[in-house]
């Protein structure tokens, strides 16, 4: 059923991606905006403050918001040009239905007719195959209100366990590792602690390109005398001037962390009193890392031994420090172990929970934090509650007005949902804020699975590449067309403000979901009239949970420029309080809902956990047939699957098409020159792109950015191996080979750079 038209050109012609450039309104210097709206960027987890210029219900540009403390007016190029996603020629202004009689494959239909059709298909599928035959995919770029509603919609309206979200590709390894070690999953410190640290350790994070504003915090630390250690297979822009660069072999981070801890113990560079008073499990970890001597560590990691010793000495003897990591260590089949290894280093140093002593995972998506707290994860209920825990189930069932036994149990991660689609267990799919055919690994499999669905409805503001497989596409809303909250990189809840109305038949996403519930004749619990009402229900639902939002209001967010959760509405004795929130976790003497005063960490005894983190090689190691490692990542001018940024002209101009980064030693061996067409092949697929020959990458590794679809997609090659705990896919390493291509790919000269 759900296959897109085989000829792409008509669908590209009708739905894009086309490039939007500055409008005549923008270029007229006398065109004063009607108003400036203080809000935030729609892209990454830093959630920079920005003022949008609005004229005649169109966002026409921006003005820096100097007063917002996190970024003080700073923006990356995506933030600068984000306004060009509005008033875009590709914008879906009506609902669309699959129509094989037209070359572009879709024809417009009335909104209400589309909703009725969606509801009747859902009802048919659930009647024929059971409630669990419907699946829901949602996303971490949605506001907290929408994320909360999607979890409730799946469990209460559709009564299916099968909901998961694109944060599965992003924050879940960090989340699982933090939960195991600290009992809570949130960056432990405000970013203002970074410049106060004397050592900055950055593992697997291309900070300059993926969290650009964080650069200024790191540079400020350097101005204050800090040393910077960067661990990465590539010399990223931030690594260029760091004090120590450790060129780790992809997939070997845990070996490095264990090796550093080994040296810390050997040299006595550990905080014994802290370990004894505030942690459990150190001895087992110490025993485990005993074998990780520098020689073995160097052999496994590919990092020269002297650099490992230097790093251990600097880390071991620092008085204050900030360790941060991102997808570079998390996108692995042992991503959680990598995270635990890094946390072991932090705990052994005792440098956490104090000013200038911090740890943080760098959040990817806009609401990468808030989107993973309130129930759109397959095993989770609002407030970081557990859908398998009877007490948590009873609490949420009561708020949702359903009987606890009627609430479905845990579902499966989003990749497993596609395996269930492939096996015929899931027959119908609703997606919002997720473009899996670009973003999931081994995406030839995803395309095959989509073809087996009986019914697929996609909600989006543009016809994303996955939506081309849909039976019905419903016109959703851009971030600037709605209000709500998101939780940024520091765990701070901030407010997105509405700048313009939805154009045409487009509707705010939460209204669309509620319209479907109404058409299914299951409106109970889906009659909210504004995001604030959803937020108020969520506050109650999160109360008493680890991610407690009960003390947060839209007004408090505005007054304080954001509120860090947990933010309680009552003190430990149950007396109402006006709580300012919790910018820094784990401060000595601090109270939390789990430890209840026993200690600063979120376990009943208040102590953090050391976890033995054993090294295992990547799921697919190199061999004679596939002798190179492929690692994937981002470029600064694009964001995730590119649904928005591949439609913004100046951003596409900046880095038009993916290229294969490789070291000149490798290029020379293969007879490849910079700019040559090169075919990279894995056991799952191949991809022909132009070579970018640079000395800033390991000679045994190639890099391809993943923002592009179709035959330009790096995810044709990647492996669907997943971490057994977090279920994150192993995007950061698989085995490939390369050869100089015989000829340019078929699309060369036919498709525009942003298309595929």
């Amino acid at each position, binding site marked *: 059923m759900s296959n897109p038209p085989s000829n792409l050109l008509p669908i590209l012609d009708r739905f894009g991606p086309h490039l939007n*450039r*500055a409008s005549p309104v*923008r*270029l007229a*210097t006398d065109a004063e905006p009607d108003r400036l709206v203080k809000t935030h960027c729609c892209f990454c987890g830093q959630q920079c403050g920005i003022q949008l210029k609005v004229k005649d219900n169109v966002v026409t*540009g*921006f003005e*820096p918001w*100097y007063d917002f403390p996190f970024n003080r*007016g*700073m*923006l*990356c*190029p995506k*933030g*600068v*040009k984000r306004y060009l996603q509005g008033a875009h020629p590709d914008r879906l202004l009506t609902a669309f239905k699959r129509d094989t009689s037209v070359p572009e494959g879709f024809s417009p239909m009335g909104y209400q007719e589309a909703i009725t059709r969606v509801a009747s298909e859902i009802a048919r599928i659930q009647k024929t195959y059971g409630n669990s035959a419907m699946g829901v995919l949602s996303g971490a770029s949605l506001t907290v209100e929408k994320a909360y509603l999607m979890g409730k919609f799946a469990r209460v309206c559709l009564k299916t366990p099968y909901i998961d979200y694109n944060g599965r590709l992003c924050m879940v390894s960090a989340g699982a590792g933090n939960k195991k070690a600290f009992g809570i999953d949130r960056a432990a410190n405000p970013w203002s602690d970074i410049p106060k640290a004397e050592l900055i350790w950055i593992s697997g994070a291309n900070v*300059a*390109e993926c969290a*650009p*504003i964080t*650069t*200024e915090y790191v*540079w*400020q630390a*350097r*101005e*204050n*005398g800090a040393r910077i250690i960067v661990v990465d297979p590539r*010399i*990223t*822009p*931030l*690594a*260029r*001037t760091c004090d120590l*660069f450790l*060129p780790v072999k992809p997939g070997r981070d845990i070996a490095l962390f264990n090796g550093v801890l080994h040296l810390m113990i050997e040299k006595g560079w550990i905080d014994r009193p802290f370990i004894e008073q505030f942690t459990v499990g150190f001895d087992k970890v110490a025993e485990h890392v005993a074998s990780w001597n520098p020689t073995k560590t160097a052999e496994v990691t*590919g990092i*020269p*031994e*002297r*650099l490992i010793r230097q790093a251990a000495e600097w880390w071991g003897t620092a008085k204050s420090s900030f360790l941060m990591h991102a997808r570079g260590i998390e996108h692995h089949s042992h991503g959680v172990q990598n995270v635990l290894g890094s946390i072991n280093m932090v705990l052994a140093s005792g440098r956490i929970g104090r000013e200038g002593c911090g740890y943080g995972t760098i959040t990817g998506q806009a609401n990468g934090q808030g989107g993973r707290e309130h129930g759109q994860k397959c095993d989770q209920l609002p407030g970081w509650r557990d859908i398998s825990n009877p007490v948590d189930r009873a609490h949420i069932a009561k708020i949702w007005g359903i009987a606890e036994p009627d609430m479905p149990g845990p579902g499966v991660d989003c990749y497993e949902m596609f395996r269930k689609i492939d096996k015929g267990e899931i027959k119908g799919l609703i997606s919002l804020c997720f473009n899996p055919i670009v973003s999931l690994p081994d995406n030839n499999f995803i395309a095959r699975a989509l073809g087996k669905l009986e019914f697929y409805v996609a909600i989006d503001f543009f016809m994303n590449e996955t939506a081309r497989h849909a039976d019905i596409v419903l016109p959703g809303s851009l971030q600037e067309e709605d209000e709500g909250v998101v939780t940024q990189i520091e765990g701070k809840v901030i407010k997105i403000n509405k700048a313009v109305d939805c154009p045409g038949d487009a509707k705010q996403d939460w209204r669309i979901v509620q319209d479907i519930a109404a058409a299914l004749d299951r409106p109970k619990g889906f009659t909210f009239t504004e995001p604030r009402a959803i937020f108020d229900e969520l506050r109650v639902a999160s109360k008493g949970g680890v991610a407690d939002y009960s003390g947060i209001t839209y007004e408090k967010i505005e007054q304080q420029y954001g509120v860090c959760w947990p933010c309680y509405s009552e003190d430990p004795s149950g007396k109402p309080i006006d709580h300012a929130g919790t910018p820094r976790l784990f401060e000595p003497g601090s109270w939390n809902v789990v430890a209840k005063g026993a200690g600063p960490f979120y376990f009943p005894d208040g102590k953090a956990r050391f976890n033995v983190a054993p090294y295992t090689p990547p799921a697919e190691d190199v061999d004679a047939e596939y002798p190179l490692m492929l690692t994937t990542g981002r470029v*600064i*001018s694009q964001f995730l699957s590119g649904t928005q940024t591949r439609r913004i002209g*100046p*951003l596409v101009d*900046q880095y038009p098409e993916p290229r294969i980064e490789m*070291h*000149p*030693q490798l290029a020379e061996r293969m007879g490849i020159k*910079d700019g040559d067409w090169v075919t990279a092949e894995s056991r799952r697929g191949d991809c022909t792109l132009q070579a970018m*020959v*640079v*000395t*800033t*990458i*390991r*000679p045994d590794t190639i890099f391809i950015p993943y923002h592009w679809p179709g035959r330009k997609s790096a995810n044709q090659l990647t492996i669907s191996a997943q971490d057994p705990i977090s279920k994150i896919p192993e995007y950061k390493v698989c085995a490939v080979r390369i050869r100089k291509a015989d000829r340019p790919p078929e699309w060369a000269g036919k498709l525009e750079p942003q298309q595929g």
Partner: protein
Amino acid sequence: MSVPSHLNFYIDPSRCIGCQACVQACTECDTHKGISMIHLETVDRAHSTQTIPVVCMHCDSPTCAEVCPADAIKRTPDGVVQSARKPRCIACNNCVLACPFGVPKMKVEFELMMKCDMCYDRSSVGLKPMCASVCPSQALFFGTREEIEAARPQSAPIDRFQFGNQTITTKVKMMGPRSVSGQRPEHLDVTAALDPNPPARSISLGVLNGSH
């Protein structure tokens, strides 16, 4: 209106991450009509991720103005060298060729030289220029001398540049090391800095090539 004398523009290339936020934001300045007046130099991408944002240095004696046969380039009393005046510019390219910093660009489609004017509509009312507002690494900084001295104790501003026999003093300041061999550098010898193999680069290469 003029740029307040206590506000200065500083460039620190060691902070630059090549993101082009400056170039993209320049096009968004209300008077730039969607065109960027600045550019980003990629030094040698084959060997380094190093990049340098190039904004106008606003020279005290601007070479561009000195070589202009049509007297189209004016320096306002606050020290900002303005973009060429449309009615006067004859698109001769003299300024483009003469500027030692490589700043002015000829816009053939308009038959006009256009260059960075420090976002005069903003800076002349005390607002930060667009590029320095957005720069995520603050490689471009607009503020007071006190602010930069407090925030950047490792570096010091330089406003004198040596190009062969020509010495140029600029309004915009370049951040350099506060101390070189125990001395505070007073000027930057650009000609001498054109060494194609600075030592820092070879160290990075050695690490990736596996040489210990």
